[in-house]
């Protein structure tokens, strides 16, 4: 079945190709790291296997779609000069926002719908996370992991079916603001020939955005008393409980935070990946692999593993490597996971005794 035309360009532009794949890998890695970060927060703080985490990512992405829909809320204007597919006069949709603010401001708001949806996603995701924890997960802390898997998997199915009910099964395009729609010449900055290392603006934005989020989560845990208590709770829940601190309440907030991180990862990813209702399931397995490779309960591990797997996956997709080992890009993530878990029993930075029984 191998029907490839053999023609490679060995040597030529290797350095450029490597830089490009590192950039791609960082971007993939950002998404992996953000999802894994949220998942680890839930694992580490609550000890809950959350199979609905991918669904949270997906809901985040659909916050962007919803925002776009809201901004696009329109009234109908009949345009007698044109006809629709049945030959009737065409009804043109005019967004309220354009009629209120004028086409210019309105158009700009529409254009910026993805960044704007962050403001929608944060309250929605925190609320959803809070509701999930209080309404459901709370009752499963003392239940076996198997039960947690079953209930969160059920929840994931329900969430995605609800989204499917309202938004359909097709991918929905959500465009980045037109300022970021193009790509810029990254190679020129580094002193390469122009036009060899081109990189889309939005991917750069996404990378920086994820760094900001990761930084924010870490400094929140590092520098606030709230974060200190939570970190202590991650290390030893019972002792912190004995100190008279209501650790459960704080963990609820952490669940909301984790949901928000997943949601924001989803929102900003929409211009790169058109959201569809089952994207959560596609990311679920991957995010578990990332978390475990990073080591259970280790936040830096999750981030590190996310970027590592992203970059390695990008390298594995290079023609030069695929022509040596066909299909390596299909399995690289799993292969790396196996190698790491066999050489480092608890992943890259895992702690002993977390989720080992």
């Amino acid at each position, binding site marked *: *079945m191998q029907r490839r035309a053999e023609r490679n360009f060995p040597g030529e532009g290797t350095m450029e190709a490597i830089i490009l794949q590192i950039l791609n890998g960082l971007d993939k890695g950002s998404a992996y790291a953000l999802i894994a970060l949220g998942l680890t927060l839930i694992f580490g703080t609550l000890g809950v*296997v959350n199979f609905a985490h991918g669904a949270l990512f997906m809901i985040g992405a659909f916050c962007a779609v919803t925002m776009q829909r809201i901004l696009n809320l329109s009234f109908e204007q009949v345009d007698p000069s044109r006809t629709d597919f049945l030959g009737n006069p065409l009804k043109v949709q005019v967004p309220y926002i354009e009629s209120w603010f004028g086409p210019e401001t309105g158009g700009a708001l529409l254009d910026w719908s993805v960044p704007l949806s962050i403001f929608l996603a944060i309250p929605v995701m925190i609320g959803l996370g809070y509701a999930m924890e209080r309404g*459901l997960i709370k*009752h499963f802390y003392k*239940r076996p*992991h*198997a*039960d947690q*898997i*079953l*209930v969160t*998997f*059920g*929840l*994931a*199915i*329900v969430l*995605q*079916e*609800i989204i499917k*009910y309202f938004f359909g099964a097709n991918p929905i395009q959500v465009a980045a603001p037109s300022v970021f729609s193009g790509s810029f010449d990254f190679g020129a900055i580094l002193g390469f020939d122009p036009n060899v290392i081109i990189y889309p603006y939005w991917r750069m934005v996404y990378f920086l955005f994820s760094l900001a989020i990761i930084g924010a989560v870490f400094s929140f845990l590092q520098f606030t008393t709230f974060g200190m208590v939570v970190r202590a709770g991650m290390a030893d829940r019972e002792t912190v409980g004995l100190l008279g601190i209501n650790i459960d309440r704080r963990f609820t907030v952490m669940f909301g935070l984790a949901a928000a991180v997943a949601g924001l990862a989803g929102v900003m990813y929409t211009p790169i990946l058109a959201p569809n209702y089952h994207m959560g*399931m596609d990311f679920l*397995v991957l995010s*578990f*692999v990332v978390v*475990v*490779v990073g080591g*259970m309960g280790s936040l830096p591990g999750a981030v590190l593993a996310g970027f590592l797997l992203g970059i390695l996956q990008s390298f594995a997709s290079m023609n030069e490597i695929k022509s040596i080992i*066909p*299909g390596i890009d*299909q*399995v690289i*993530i*799993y*292969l790396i*996971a*196996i190698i790491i*878990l*066999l050489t480092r*029993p*608890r*992943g890259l930075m895992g702690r002993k005794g977390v*989720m*080992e*029984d």
Partner: protein
Amino acid sequence: MFGLNPRDTRFLLIVVFLTLATPLLLQPFPESSGLAQFNAGYPDLMQRFAIFGIFAIGFNILFGLTGYLSFGHAAFLGVGSYTVVWMYKLLGYNILPGLVLAMVISGLFALLIGFISLRRSGIYFSILTLAFAQMSYNLAYSVLTPITNGETGLQVYSNDPQVLMGANAPTSPHIFGLVMRDSVQLPVGDWLFTFNIGYYFCAIVAILAFYISLRIFRSPFGMMLRAIKTNQTRLNYTGLNPRPYTLAAFVISGIYAGLAGGLLAAMDPLAGAERMQWTASGEVVLMTILGGAGTLMGPVLGAGFIKYFENIFSKINDNVLHAWFAFLPDGLENFLVALMHPFVGKGWHLTLGILFMLVVIFLPGGLIEGGQRIARLFRRRPDSDSRHQPKPAPHVGE
């Protein structure tokens, strides 16, 4: 009898009876009634009940007893299917060589994966098995297309060698001339019962599989496996190395999975790569937990439950709903149809998801616990005053 105590013998006989009577039991509604939609007594679904029952029973030997949660058992299912179809292609349509080889090959495959994966425990073990299975799936879907026929699924072509195929041999899967697809139909009044050879073959294999699992549960080996789940440290300091036991359990459950996969191909001579996907591995995990992990019958119930939804609920469309409620006034009819619409047909996933949640919330022990609660309702409570006496441990397998 059969090396079992009287209680287990009774249990086994009940299972045998239920399995053999399935074609009758699953056909409770008359053909002409609207509820005939819920009848499940047709060969394909009954075969699936038996086959996925075997899969789940095997998985339960690993997960239910040792607590090691494998997320890659679908790989063995796939290997079993591919083996059987390849035997069709090379030898002929007799299913026996394929099934035997399917068990051997999936056992060897499980030995390899288990040997590596069992170096880790807990979620690290789960991810290792998942990684192996996903690699198998991805490769089978793409690079290994010459062996697996990729997305289309491996099937038999007329120009395949089939060296053992006699001139008059059946051209579909059979065992020494008994064709799997053949059925006997029995109309009784408005009921129609189908007795399918393939189903009965699967049923006999399933009963054997169940019997072996029952013996394993009651054996010292089974006890060791349960001990592993409870306390590995103590086991170590009791002079036992848990690894050979877990590996044996892993291989046994891998063989069960390979057998189930082989039977799938024996009933329907096509092996698709999706059988190895993580969703398929996840499905057997869900079946086991849903039914009740560590119990003998639970996983079988769970398997039946999920397959029933997949096959029956997905086929209910608006037309069917309208037919059910046709006796109502139009407004009410439309309202009820609209109300049920999201939960059936293309919405069968939603119903399944909700039921997963309800079962796990209200029946922590799975469906089997639901059954026990119902049974308790009907039973007199003779010892309500002896509540404070030491509670005897529940018999494993209830």
